[in-house]
């Protein structure tokens, strides 16, 4: 059984993004980049399935610039077996990403796709759902628990107000939520080993898919800043201010 794990290179989780002064986007020059945190959770889950003996091969795929090779090497160091980079310098929208992933899936024929529920740059939370719709495969989004047995997947999902469990025959698209697992740190020996694992690079043009942006970005601006407030000395002062000044109690 084969699992495909799409991963994205994004601004590091701990870096505060800065909007460019000309309002054309977020400044990514000389900023630390890392694997999207939800993608890390997806890689971890796939590797755990392999360690449990449920799957035999974990293939990581990224669509991005040459530097996304580093992101794929991280996936390989975590335990993926091989990697594919679909190279492009363009910033693809979720629909285009889903179309390219569909083409990769048609070549690779995985039994399962595990991917992050959203990337922390665009915050779209759309690619997995779109991929499921394009392929006609069952969708299990926002997974907090995944069990694969025989030819079916049982997935517990984070829903409004609690948890929902669904079941679907493979192949299935699973999108990872935060509580699915805690990703491991790659050990130094595994980072060294990952350098020797196979990483294929394909030109995005070879897929013949129209990936041109559909949306025009008019501007990217800083959100309005909240003015700093005041400090109060005691809980009683606080209640008095909330009642008399703010009028919220």
């Amino acid at each position, binding site marked *: 059984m084969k699992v495909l794990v799409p991963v994205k290179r994004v*601004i590091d989780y701990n870096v*505060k*993004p800065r*909007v460019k002064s000309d309002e054309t986007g*977020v400044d990514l020059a000389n900023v630390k980049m890392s694997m999207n945190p939800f993608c890390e959770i997806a890689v971890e889950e796939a590797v755990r399935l392999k360690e449990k003996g449920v799957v035999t091969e974990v293939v990581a795929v990224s669509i991005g610039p040459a530097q996304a090779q580093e992101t794929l090497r991280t996936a390989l160091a975590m335990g993926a077996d091989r990697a594919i980079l679909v190279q492009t310098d363009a910033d693809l929208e*979720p*629909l285009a990403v889903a179309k390219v992933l569909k083409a990769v899936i048609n070549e690779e024929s995985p039994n399962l796709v595990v991917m992050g529920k959203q990337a*922390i*740059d665009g*915050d*779209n*939370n*759309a*690619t997995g*759902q*779109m991929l*499921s*719709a*394009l392929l006609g495969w*069952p*969708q299990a*989004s*926002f997974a907090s628990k995944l069990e694969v047995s025989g030819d079916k997947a049982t997935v517990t999902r*984070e*829903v*409004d*107000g*609690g*948890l*929902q*469990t*669904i*079941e*679907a025959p493979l192949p299935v698209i699973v999108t990872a*939520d*935060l*509580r699915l697992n805690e990703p491991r740190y790659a050990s130094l020996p595994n980072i060294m080993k990952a350098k020797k694992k196979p990483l294929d690079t394909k030109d995005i043009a070879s897929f013949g898919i129209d990936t041109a942006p*559909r*949306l*025009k*970005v*008019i*501007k*990217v*601006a800083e*959100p309005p800043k*909240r003015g*700093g*407030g*005041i*400090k*109060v*000395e005691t*809980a009683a002062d*606080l*209640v008095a*201010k*909330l009642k008399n000044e*703010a009028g*919220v109690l």
Partner: protein
Amino acid sequence: MAVLVIADLNAGALSDNTHKTVSAAKAIGGDIDILVVGKDAKSAADAAAKIEGVRKVLLAQSDDLGHGLAEAIEAVVVPLMSGYDAVLTPATSQGKNFSPRIAAKLDVSHISDVVEVVDASTFVRPIYAGNALETVQSSEAKKVVTVRPTAFKAAGEGGSASVEDIDAGAGAGPTKFVGEEIVKSERPELTGAKIVVSGGRAMGSAEEFQKVIEPLADKLGAAVGASRAAVDAGYAPNDYQVGQTGKVVAPELYIAIGISGAIQHLAGMKDSRIIVAINKDGDAPIFQVADYGLVADYKAAVPELMSALG
């Protein structure tokens, strides 16, 4: 121009998120219809018909729709889209689950988590955990949009639209509902509450979280929230999580207790009208957004707050 709004139901009842999404639809303009999908959802459809400015309500009912299965909802919506220029869904877990499927089937972009409608084709949405606001323009024939409900005022009541039963579609195919665990609570729903009391990692344990945060919330008639750090540590359930990766709230009053104010938490609550922070570290970033800050150990401050509230 015609806009379809997909209703949000909470335990079978129409939620306020629907009214807020209707306001976003009004900003686009044109006729507004509401689609209610669910099981035993007639009363929700009747409630939707009373929202001001609605032309008609469409009601589709089946077991799969009642369980909110994404494939089933997509199968109802996509055939309807020949009659609409835009479809708007509240950006709840449920809405986020199915709305991008509709966009993919129509071969158009998905415009996620909109906080402002500039005009019928131009929308503002937060990116990078709310650290930037992106204005995007779509020239596509159909707009498929999720709307962040806290960014819009609820549309009023007073309408008297007709309710029309429609076909429930082909269902979810091979995807089967197995079960659910929905937390039943007397407290208001987190995203719609007027007051939210949230606890952070400083609580140190689930027992302490329950002992400190919950009585204060109950005294104020508030919903309970938590920071991601508190959720990750297991002090609070995941659906309490306020932040970019959890729920986005904008109550009248937000009280953050023992929360340092990480970027990702601020993204989930910074649009609250009044923010109160109680933290023993006077340099915690939460104080930069707080209207009222109390530098104190919550262990002393919360009991004092309880007694000051009477």
